[in-house]
């Protein structure tokens, strides 16, 4: 049985009973994939949740929404990509590297090449926004003058140049999420993963965040967004994949609600 590519422009390969992508198929093109999941399975015995034989490819420069009901495994999928979880079976390749084989410093080096945005922002409350964003570079040993050089344009990109010295508690939810995006991109990642970035935001702030993500995508960053915000998907005008019953299927944006 061959694999069926429903929407060629999105590069999502629908799973089949056989491994859909052979190693030989990837040679020479692996580097052009931002993410490549091959036969990935992950299950949790306690909750009964599972991802089954996922095959999924995202090319450099793509923008993709991943949607699905709560508990479908969207966050788990993201965690597999940034190495916070390991698959039970299969390969998770990011920029050609199998994340499942990485640990310690090699995993750290990989994470420097991607940015992650969380629903709960994960900002350190007792630090200013500038400190929170600069922290990424500080923890990578970047000199202070270089940090300063990077900080201003990054904050400007997310519209927080005047809030650099504010603490997270002094900002609105939308602003905090934008700060979280600034932190994710200050290290110039090639891939940005946003896990329910608008989950805690009102529509206006959600659209602002979406606008920033689209802008980043236009700068060449591959962006993968998990969301169940239908309005966001509609406004995003980007390919949508639905994760349900452990399977990932590409759907027309209009069908995201079903």
């Amino acid at each position, binding site marked *: 049985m061959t694999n069926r590519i429903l929407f060629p422009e999105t590069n999502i390969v629908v799973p089949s009973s056989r491994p859909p992508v052979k190693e030989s198929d990837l040679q020479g093109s692996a580097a052009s994939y931002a993410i490549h999941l091959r036969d990935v399975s992950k299950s949790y015995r306690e909750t009964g949740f599972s991802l089954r034989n996922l095959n999924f490819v995202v090319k450099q420069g793509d923008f993709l929404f991943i949607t699905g009901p709560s508990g479908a495994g969207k966050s788990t999928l993201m965690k597999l990509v940034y190495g916070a979880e390991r698959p039970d079976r299969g390969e998770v390749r990011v920029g050609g590297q199998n994340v499942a084989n990485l640990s310690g410093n090699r995993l750290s080096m990989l994470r420097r090449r991607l940015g992650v945005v969380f629903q709960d922002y994960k900002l350190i409350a007792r630090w200013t926004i500038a400190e929170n964003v600069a*922290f990424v570079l500080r*923890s990578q040993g970047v000199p202070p003058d270089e940090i300063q050089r990077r900080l201003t344009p990054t904050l400007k990109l997310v519209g927080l140049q005047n809030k650099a010295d504010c603490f997270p508690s002094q900002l609105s939810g939308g602003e905090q999420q934008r700060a979280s995006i600034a932190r994710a991109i200050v290290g110039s990642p090639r891939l940005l993963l946003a896990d329910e970035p608008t989950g805690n935001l009102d529509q206006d702030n959600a659209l602002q965040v979406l606008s920033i993500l689209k802008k980043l995508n236009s700068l060449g960053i591959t962006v993968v967004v998990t969301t169940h915000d239908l309005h966001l998907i509609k406004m995003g005008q980007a390919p949508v994949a639905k994760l349900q019953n452990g399977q990932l299927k590409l759907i027309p944006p209009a069908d995201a609600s079903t």
Partner: protein
Amino acid sequence: MRMPSLPMPLPFKVTVTQVQYLLQETVKGLQRGSWMNWAAVSTVTVLLFLLGLSLQTNWQINSFLTQAGSQLEISVYLKPSVSGATLQQQIQQFPDVASVSLVPRDRAWRELLTELGTTDLQGATDALGQNPLVDELKIQAKQADQVPKIAQMLTNFTEVDHVSYLNEVMQNLGQLNRGIGKMGWAVIGLLTLTALAVINTTIRLIVVARHQEIEVMQLVGATTTWIYLPFLLQGILFGLIGGGVALTFMATARHFMQQLLQQQPVFLQVLAKSLQLSPTQLWVLPLTILGFGSFIGLTGSFLAVRRFILR
């Protein structure tokens, strides 16, 4: 348009930044530890103070024994027919012997009679038929602990009738020294375990307090060394601070004791000399204290973060 990637900083600049960062993080960790820092430093201080005291006491008793030993004499009484002068040369050759002096029987007899208040030397000798005393050799050892060994060797001479020396004081002091040593090591062992436990707990609490930062650090690609080295440095700092305080206490106590003894009668002032440390001991003591403190601090903090480092 693409996001510009980070330029490669100069290696020297990176090293300076890294050292600066690690020191800042170490200080930050100390600020987070709050009162637990106090617990860790004070436990380490008590441990290192006792370790230093034990070492110092050992050195001081040894020094006293050496000084006292050099003043202790072995008295060798020869057989009546033997002349002390012949044996004196032989004993002088012993490597552990500092000096040998001869007390001829005539001089000893004269001194004895003088002490007894008799002035008629000839009369007393005639009354007994002859001088009843024998030649005596007074021997001083180079080291106090060699006195029993030399005495044993002397008894093997056929010319020697009897050997006597003041060994009781030496033995008691030696026993005291060994006793203090054993007790000291037992207490130090227990305190070492306590210090390790306290440092371990302190560092763990700081790790818990900073878990959010650590999680973010991990997600943004900070290496394990980068994340956890400040905690190890913090442990070492506990050891160094504790060592510094312990050394200050010890120096103060030593100074105070010396001042006190100098106001005492002359025979007690000899003790003050024993309390002084030799130039070698003066740098071995701080090195030992600070080295052991750093080791305890590093071990305690490593135990606290080992599961994160080794995974």
